[in-house]
């Protein structure tokens, strides 16, 4: 396969193929597979949406309520994304760049809120503060449950930033704040924007947590059409509105992140930035982080402990917690591995061969995040029923569904580390006679490993708490922690439900702990100390 010249006369795809030598076939195949999987639910959405008459669509869309719901969605997304950005970056900076005590513990605690499903969070808040309602309540609850989506990639990125740039800035007379704003933040941009993107998209699709604080967003319109109207077609039309909003968000992020983010390369050996000695100011971040963790973990955790002590009196037939843990862990691990494996080629392709096609593919991979889980799951139902019946309601289908739903998390995770793998090093490897596969294995993979760990953990934790798609696609008779929790709470048996929620958090703590370790070991600064 010797791809050569004749670049300029070819259309962009072919030109891209040959522009930087050839496109690695395996990467291209992986990225196309990822794109194909993401397209499945989108195609379903469009095909279904063509069903209802225009009149029905007009009646559903052109209502005052819809305007109110859209406004609610917009102001929630803006406020939460900004707050998550501030909290996520501040927390990551404190943990990674200061002398904060008990940093390892904070690194785990700050990730854990992701392992608490939204219905547990809602249930916690309702038990603790029943009066909490409306917009401020929704902003607060969503912020404390979503900020880890910013924290995780930013913290990972911070650890692997080259400290020399910051040192250079300081030595040229820049103050610490200006250095942070002009140098550090700029280097963090891909991770930070990626995290914000996830938060914004997740908010578009969120439903359960708002219902409980009586704040309703556009997704409510989709769910009622689906649940009460038995009208998947109309629900799909409404979901297309979410897709349109997501396209705007995705375009905005692209514009903000600039064209060359992934090409930035580091010269010389990586050197960690020195930690800032907090001294007497230590109390400040301690109080701030404690407040965030107390709100994010303390409230749902407290409610869980309360119900655990109360005990359950459910008449549901007892099933083994062990088997639910086993299924949850196995499905989530498989999904995390698959999503990470799919995210790598998507990110590599856009980083190494940036053009209209690869950017489009990468943007596409974020869309599942903004779609209600039930729509994605029904898309898979429709596809497998008609084209792959043997897979219907199989373990594989469920794992693939998780991988599609949470591919955006994996993409952001991998993206946060891709800057640590400059293309130059790969070129050096090749010039020394290593083959493509060998370069990948011995140069690129070790460099992006922390990003892979982040991707794996994010997808694992989200899959472990997934409910909607699990109920639709699991093999008949199989239970996960989330389905058991759901079954008990719909019986009002909170006491019996609580152990399952507690196990969900415990299962999520494992990857949360592992990324803090894994990332730590990989960081040059930590090993040197």
């Amino acid at each position: 396969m010797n791809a050569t010249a004749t670049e300029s006369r070819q259309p962009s795809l072919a030109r891209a193929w040959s522009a930087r030598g050839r496109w690695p076939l395996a990467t291209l195949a992986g990225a196309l597979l990822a794109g194909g999987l993401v397209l499945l639910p989108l195609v379903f959405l469009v095909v279904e949406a063509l069903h209802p008459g225009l009149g029905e669509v007009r009646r559903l869309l052109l209502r005052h309520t819809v305007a109110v719901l859209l406004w609610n969605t917009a102001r929630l997304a803006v406020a939460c994304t900004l707050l998550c950005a501030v909290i996520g970056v501040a927390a990551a900076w404190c943990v990674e760049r200061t002398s904060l005590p008990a940093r390892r513990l904070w690194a785990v605690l700050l990730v854990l809120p992701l392992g608490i499903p939204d219905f547990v969070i809602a249930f916690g808040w309702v038990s603790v503060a029943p009066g909490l309602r409306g917009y401020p309540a929704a902003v607060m609850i969503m912020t404390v449950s979503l900020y880890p989506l910013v924290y995780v990639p930013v913290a990972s990125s911070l650890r692997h930033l080259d400290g020399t740039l910051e040192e250079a800035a300081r030595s040229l007379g820049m103050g610490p704040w200006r250095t942070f704003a002009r140098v550090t933040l700029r280097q963090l941009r891909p991770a930070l924007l990626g995290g914000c993107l996830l938060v914004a998209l997740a908010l578009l699709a969120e439903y359960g947590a708002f219902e409980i604080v009586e704040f309703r967003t556009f997704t409510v319109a989709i769910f009622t059409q689906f649940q009460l109207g038995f009208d998947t077609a109309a629900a799909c039309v409404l979901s297309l509105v979410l897709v349109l909003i997501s396209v705007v968000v995705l375009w905005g992020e692209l514009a903000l992140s600039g064209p060359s983010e992934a090409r930035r390369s580091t010269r010389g050996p990586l050197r960690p930035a020195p930690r800032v000695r907090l001294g007497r100011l230590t109390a400040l971040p301690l109080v701030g982080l404690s407040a965030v963790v107390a709100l994010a973990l303390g409230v749902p955790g407290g409610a869980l402990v309360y119900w655990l002590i109360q005990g359950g009196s459910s008449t549901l037939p007892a099933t083994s917690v062990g088997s639910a843990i086993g299924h949850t862990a196995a499905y989530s691990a498989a999904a995390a591995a698959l999503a990470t494996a799919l995210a790598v080629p998507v990110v590599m392709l856009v980083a190494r061969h940036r053009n209209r096609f690869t950017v489009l593919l990468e943007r596409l991979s974020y869309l599942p995040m903004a779609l209600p889980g039930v729509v994605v799951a029904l898309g898979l139902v429709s596809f497998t029923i008609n084209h792959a019946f043997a897979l219907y309601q199989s373990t594989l289908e469920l794992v693939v569904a998780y991988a599609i739903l949470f591919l955006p998390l994996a993409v952001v995770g991998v993206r946060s580390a891709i800057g640590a793998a400059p293309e130059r090093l790969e070129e050096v490897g090749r010039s020394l006679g290593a083959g493509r596969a060998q370069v990948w294995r011995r140069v690129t993979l070790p460099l992006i490993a922390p990003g892979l760990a982040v991707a794996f953990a994010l997808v694992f934790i989200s899959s472990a708490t997934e409910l909607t798609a699990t109920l639709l696609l699991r093999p008949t008779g199989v239970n996960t922690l989330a389905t058991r929790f759901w079954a008990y709470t719909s019986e009002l048996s909170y006491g019996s439900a609580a152990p399952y929620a507690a196990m969900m958090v415990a299962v999520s703590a494992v990857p949360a702990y592992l990324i803090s370790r894994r990332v730590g070991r990989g960081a040059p600064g930590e090993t040197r100390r």
Partner: protein
Amino acid sequence: MGALCLGAAISGCGSGGGAGGAQALTIYNGQHEQTTAALVKAFEAKTGIKAAVRSDDEAVLANQIIQEGSKSPADVFYTENTPPLEALREHGLLAAAAPAALSSIPARYNSAQGVWVGVSGRVSVLVYNTSELKQSQLPNSILELADPRFKGKLAFAPSETDFQPLITSIVKFRGRAAAEAWLKGLKENGRQLPDNETITSEVNSGQSALGPINHYYWYRLRREEGGHMSSALHYYAPKDPGYLVNVSGAAVLKSSRHQAAAQRFLEFLVSREGQEVLAHSDSYEYPLRPGVAAPEGLRPFSELQPASLTPAELGDGSEALALEQKVGLL
């Protein structure tokens, strides 16, 4: 990567159900899991036919079956309410129910077309907090809930499937305009909660003073709370549009490849034996078969004086939905 061995491990332990086991029935279950579990256990013991249960929200299951169409793995669909069954009937997905099953239940609780059978019933009532409101302050008619005197006291669940029958009933007995005005009044007066479970616990804890629910949520909360309740149930005046019996039913899918076994399950649900299981299952629903006593502590079924709204009149609830959308509740 460990993905491969993991994949092998889970495909080993996760292949329990599958789409088409030889003799096993697949039941798509929108009814409360414990009720169905008790019924299935008794059915398996009696007939030796194995049944696998797949539980989810009834509306999600209905949409799933519509997507599955003629290839649905489901043999039986068992729901909490009739609108999902009616939606499947409109899609032509239900088989005629066995005459033996239909004849066990009074015709007014069955499908008008004979494609599903009523299994159990719930009665729509008010739950009120006993320290917030006195018996004498409670409304006789559900229409009074729109009264300004309940402003700030009411909780209701506009997106709950149990709410729409109330709207349909008011449309039938008082007209569309009255129903619309009533909904507007409710929107003014009350908090909108996600479901009946939340209404019941919020009223019990005093967050709201009263709210319309189906009776069994209160009994279930009472069981969970060990009998210590700060709330009580209130029945509307006889024949009031809010006084309804909501039916839980079951149907055999036309696409089922186990028609005989599926029909036997339907027959079992409405047999004396099946109905006794229901009455003792702690689901606190009324068995619909005449002569089977209601669970202890419930007002006897024969003493109820509900308005007569047939499942056919209830339909798939789309008119009620449109009305809710019009006033901006959904």
